């Protein structure tokens, strides 16, 4: 079980990050007999550490290292040091995630061909199609245990009161609303229990009903003896030789000592802020702009989805917290129909927050106080609402860069995240606010609250896939265009964001990438 590999073993795959991408890749490789070390910056938590408490879990597992948000968006003012709400811990953001698992739509791999050039955006087709990914989506759904799919045959969750309210509103305005396909067990499956509707999916599932690499992929990989996980190991830079091949990874261990782990292959899966940051921090005389960056696209095209919240107050109780966090999705506007006044689609994901988070997000920032806010919070139990999740435009100037002077506790330049709306994003969000309002008013809502985007939970695109090396960072396997034995295995590969939540696609890509890495290693190409 407790495999240990030597720092000088240069036959290993070194995977950086143990979340959706990294954790999945490690297990897939381990099952094929390929040995890896997973370096994870965060601690290893157990189910005992998980509490049904929003702020406690936020404090316990969030990535809170210094970061800056810049740009004219409200987020920069409200949360100047918290661009993203993600996790530092074994399992990464799959601890926090709500479990929504949907496949991309066909056209979402072809946004450039579909809409042509969108001024001010850096839109590109993916170098893969839905058809190529379908078998891997199927495998991902099986692996993760997605309910309501043919892949598992597991039934949907029961319809919660929150779902029923929204579904009725959707019916009244003629909009399509469906129960969510969630990677949350509705039956005992894969050694994990069925959901008991605690309603704290985004604080980590206390009983392990929700898929997280923390207690699925990681222990399964360890059980093969082919994988060593090193928690509290913060990667500082990736090293290369004079032929331009990566050779190892320098990291700070739990005691702050620097260690160099040699590698045959390196896979970067630190989520879309840290992954490009690592590549930029690994700049050398041979690669002065950072590794894998001949295109100049490392860190660019940062996407978070077009988001926002809409919460209505009714006369009677809803008790939205008595539900899986996302019980259903209104899919009426998920297609690409420029007639609506914007390109690409969005989904309205029924989603609850607890009272503590609602008080922070209903009107975030310095002006969020006073009688109107207090009155709304007094109506907490009569609220129902959505989190908007729509495709956002890749824009080159939305990016991750390194602070010119300031360093973090590891001595690394602090990342600066610049993100602002493309005009299409703004139009889409307004469309979503309007349609949500219609839906809520059809049910007699007394008041509708519009919440600005929270710190990003979906982070994508900063090492994007492209057909041509000049347009992106990696090829259709997530392999660096410039460096053959360097891979990107997380959401930063996304060429465009799609409308759907990213994790199922991240996992499908990681399964597919594992096949490719195995084959390339066998053929001694890497």
């Amino acid at each position: 079980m407790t495999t240990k590999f030597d720092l000088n073993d240069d036959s290993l795959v070194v995977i950086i990050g143990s979340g959706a991408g990294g954790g999945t890749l490690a297990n897939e490789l381990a099952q094929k007999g390929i040995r890896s070390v997973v370096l994870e910056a965060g601690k290893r938590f157990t189910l005992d550490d998980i509490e049904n408490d929003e702020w406690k879990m936020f404090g316990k597992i969030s990535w809170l290292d210094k970061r800056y948000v810049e740009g004219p968006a409200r987020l920069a003012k409200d949360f100047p040091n918290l661009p993203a709400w993600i996790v530092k811990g074994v399992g990464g953001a799959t601890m926090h995630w709500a479990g929504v698992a949907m496949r991309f739509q066909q056209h979402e791999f072809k946004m450039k061909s579909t809409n042509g050039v969108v001024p001010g955006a850096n839109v590109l087709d993916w170098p893969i199609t839905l058809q190529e990914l379908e078998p891997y989506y199927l495998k991902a759904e099986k692996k993760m245990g997605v309910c309501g799919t043919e892949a598992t045959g597991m039934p949907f969750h029961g319809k919660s009161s929150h779902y029923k309210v929204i579904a009725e509103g959707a019916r009244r305005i003629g909009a399509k609303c469906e129960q969510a396909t969630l990677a949350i067990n509705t039956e005992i499956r894969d050694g994990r229990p069925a959901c008991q509707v605690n309603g704290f999916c985004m604080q980590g599932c206390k009983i392990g009903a929700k898929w997280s690499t923390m207690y699925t992929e990681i222990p399964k990989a360890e059980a093969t003896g082919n994988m060593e996980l090193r928690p509290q190991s913060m990667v500082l830079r990736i090293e290369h030789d004079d032929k331009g091949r990566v050779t190892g990874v320098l990291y700070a261990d739990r005691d702050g000592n620097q260690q160099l782990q040699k590698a045959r292959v390196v896979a970067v899966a630190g989520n879309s802020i840290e992954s490009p940051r690592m590549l930029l921090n690994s700049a050398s005389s041979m690669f002065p702009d950072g590794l894998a960056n001949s295109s100049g696209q490392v860190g660019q095209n940062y996407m978070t989805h077009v988001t926002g919240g809409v919460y209505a107050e009714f006369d009677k109780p809803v008790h939205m917290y008595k539900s899986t966090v996302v019980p259903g999705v209104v899919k009426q506007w998920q297609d690409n129909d420029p007639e609506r006044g914007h390109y690409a689609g969005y989904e309205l994901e029924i989603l609850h927050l607890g009272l503590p988070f609602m008080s922070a997000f209903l009107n975030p920032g310095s002006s969020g106080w006073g009688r109107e806010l207090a009155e709304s919070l007094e109506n907490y139990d009569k609220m129902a609402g959505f989190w908007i999740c729509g495709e956002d435009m890749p824009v080159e100037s939305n990016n991750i860069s390194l602070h010119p002077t300031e360093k973090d506790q590891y001595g690394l330049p602090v990342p600066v995240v610049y993100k602002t709306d493309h005009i299409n994003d703004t139009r889409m969000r307004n469309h979503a606010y309007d349609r949500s309002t219609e839906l809520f008013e059809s049910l007699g809502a007394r008041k509708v609250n519009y919440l600005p985007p929270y710190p990003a939970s979906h982070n994508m695109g900063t090492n994007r896939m492209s057909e041509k090396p000049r347009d992106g960072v990696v090829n259709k396997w997530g392999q660096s265009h410039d460096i053959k034995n360097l891979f990107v295995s997380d959401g930063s590969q996304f060429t465009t964001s799609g409308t759907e939540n990213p994790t199922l696609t991240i996992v499908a890509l990681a399964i597919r990438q594992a096949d490719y890495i195995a084959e390339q290693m066998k053929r001694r190409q890497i």
Partner: protein
Amino acid sequence: MNKNNTAESIPNPSRRRFLARSGAAAVCAGALSAGLLSATAWAAKAVGEQASATLLRMARDIYPHDTLEDKYYSQVLTPLAKKAEQDAALQTLLKEGVAELDKRSHQRFGKPYLEVAVESDRVQILRAIEDGAFFQRLKGDLMMGIYNNPELWPRFGYGGSAWQHGGYINRGYDQIDWV
């Protein structure tokens, strides 16, 4: 909104319902008028009586829940004041913050903050300082102390931790009688 500070004068039906649920109707009106000083012994030592009463008034203006007893606001302010006894910077922040508040009240309404009777007048003064460290410190502590206080969750109709009760799978997650 131009509402004054007693619960009886507020016709809003939502608040009446909140009042009924919390069963605290009797407490609130008195607490908000004359009873202020007595409830604020907590901070008198660190910042003085007038200042501590002002802080309580301000706290209730930031998150005004007329049915919540003063003690819930004091529960936030007391540890802050205690900390200020040891922490000179915090003490200065609080003292100077209150002084600034009173200065602005005098300029605008000719009396200290505590004596400005109409809530919307006090809100005007607070809006002007809301970006400052003093206000944000109080707001931040209050948000946690009020909305993240498990003791108050039932009053807001929030269930809190559920796993130890077996979740809601057998406790009415699917019940709704109006759709």
